[in-house]
């Protein structure tokens, strides 16, 4: 099962490498990882997704906590949460049939065509990872040229929030 973990860290040199190192050192997988400064520029927010049973996730959360630069860790997927991922796809679109079909498909998934050439469409899509997977699935027959995904970011639902 996919688990989403969010970490608030001191925005210090080397902090990210300690997180990545922890995962390889302890034999945990990282499926996606995103990191960026927050509105408080002394803090970075890191979101990662991983798999594993409860025991392993508990260890991962504890190990992340143990890093000296870590201020807060939560497993978002433990409670109600919202997750989003951004994807940009470049697809061959050289005939008018293909273009019409891609436009329809993009609309169904609430995508945006953000670049067009004589031979290609570039479509942007935002959603949870399953939705992005489904879009890729719908395009198998057409064949994608290039796919870029941002990795997951997420936030708790309701009044709960992650803060210092």
């Amino acid at each position: 099962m996919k688990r989403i973990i969010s970490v608030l860290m001191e925005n210090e040199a080397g902090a990210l490498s300690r997180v990545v190192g922890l995962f390889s050192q302890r034999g945990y997988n990282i499926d996606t990882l995103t990191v960026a400064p927050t509105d408080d520029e002394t803090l970075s927010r890191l979101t990662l997704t991983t798999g594993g049973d409860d025991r392993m996730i508990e260890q991962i959360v504890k190990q992340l906590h143990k890093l000296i630069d870590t201020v807060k860790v939560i497993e978002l997927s433990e409670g109600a949460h919202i997750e989003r991922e951004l994807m940009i796809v470049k697809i061959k679109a050289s005939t008018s049939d293909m273009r019409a079909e891609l436009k329809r498909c993009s609309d169904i998934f609430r995508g945006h065509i953000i670049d067009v050439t004589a031979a290609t469409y570039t479509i942007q899509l935002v959603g949870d990872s399953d939705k992005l997977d489904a879009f890729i699935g719908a395009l198998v027959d057409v064949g994608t040229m290039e796919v870029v995904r941002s990795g997951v970011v997420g936030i708790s639902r309701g009044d709960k929030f992650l803060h210092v």
Partner: protein
Amino acid sequence: MELLSGGDIIVRALRDAGVNFVWGYPGGAALHIYDAIFRQDDVHHLLVRHEQAAVHAADGFSRATGQVGTALVTSGPGATNAITGIATAYMDSIPLVVISGQVPLTKIGQDAFQETDMVGVSRPIVKHSFLVTRAEDIAATIAKAYYIASTGRPGPVVVDIPKDVTDPNYKVAYRFPDKVVMRSYQPSSRGHKGQIKRAAKVLLDAKRPVIYAGGGVIIDNASEHLRELVRLLNYPVTNTLMGLGAYPGSDPLFVGMLGMHGTYEANAAMHDADVIFAVGARFDDRVTNDLEKFCPRATIIHIDVDPTSVSKNIEAHIPIVGTCSAVLREMVSIIKQAPQSPDSVAIDAWWTQINQWRAEHGIYTQPRYEPSAGNLIKPQDVIKMLYEVTEGKAYVTSDVGQHQMFAAQYYLFDQPRQWINSGGLGTMGFGLPAAMGVQLAFPDAHVACVTGEGSIQMCIQELSTCTQHQLPIKIINLNNAALGMVRQWQDMNYSSRYAESLYEDSLPDFVALAEAYGHVGMRIEHIDELAPKMRECFALKDRVVFMDICVDRAEHVYPMQVPGGSMRELWLNKSEKT
């Protein structure tokens, strides 16, 4: 405010962090720092012969005193030489600060001469690390380094300092912080009161309890609290290899070390226990044997300051995250006030069982090996003699191998911090430099390094350091002319094919070698020489003495857990299993 250069700030900050001694080795990137050391008298530097030894010596000093050890090395090869020492300290949770010189900031990333990414190389084996990029940040960083190293679960901290940050011509205001506060790191923890109460109840209800105490008790100076708890309960206690001395080795309630080379009674008691009270121990694979078969009937109470240690290998039924001293203190006061006392009938029956195990296969109720005779000196008897001659009061450091296990088994440590060995990493070469650190801390104490002819050669150059700084340690070399522990495994698992574990014809003359360094050498080949020579050795108060003792080459360490078995499945000697 006083204006100081980066180099001077480092030394001043060390002083203000309470550091008296720094072990180290100079080189280009550290020369501004070395010059600053030269120009003051508060912080004493001890020159070693290899950076690995600087870190081990700082580590030995720390293990013996409880203070943070300090080492100073240069960039590149100096830094990488320190790595084994840092990893050794990391595995045993020893508080160290290792300061490394680095190439100037302007050269970082350019493959400059003697450039190594020290923060990167050391990352998996440090508690934390810093790269200091401004002279203004040095004092605060050093204060943080000592704070982080010594609090929570202790460990080594690396402070990497580029040469231009220590520039003597760039001076800034010096201020050492009175207090370190970090929003991301707030370690101390007293343990959850409700959990401690629950644990106390389970402990008092126990019929077949075992108290399993590890190195955490020693590190946290909680030995007195442990002893008080045991006095109240009268329960059997076992110590891990790292925990020896946490509870007195000569006390009747002590059932010996547990684990791979633990006693039969300790391992059997663990296996049959209904309650295991683990404190400052981490259910290491050298303790548990096969996890699937581990202590099938036990309720496990686990106290540790590091939450990641709890339920890592073995699921704890009652986890308590807190310092050993705080939790044990609370536990003692709860048990003192409890209306209930231990179930004395059940506990008596449990002791009857344990005493029967002791009588059957215990190594302390009678010798379980052939006695020494003539030129056949048994390594176990050497340790027993060491115990006798030093009246059980020596600090004993050790290397890694059979000699280490014999020392752990046969020297009965009554005090915490008396036994100093590399338990987690198992670093051959640790013993001699660690002994230097201990002797520096306690100039009048007997400090013995129990070693093997293999291990001692890994840091033998430090015999010169002992001369320079007058550190009169005693080296007890159990010379079996082999990498004995390797050979034992080859006997047991590889039909005695001794792949690269023998080197008899190329061993040095250790007596001549010791003398070459200005020390006293002794070679002992006959059991009758052992007692008088050992007495003579320890009577030579001001000298390093190297006792090269030829011991039985065929001896194995027993008991030994059968791989893949439960804790109590042991080889008792070459032919007998439990």
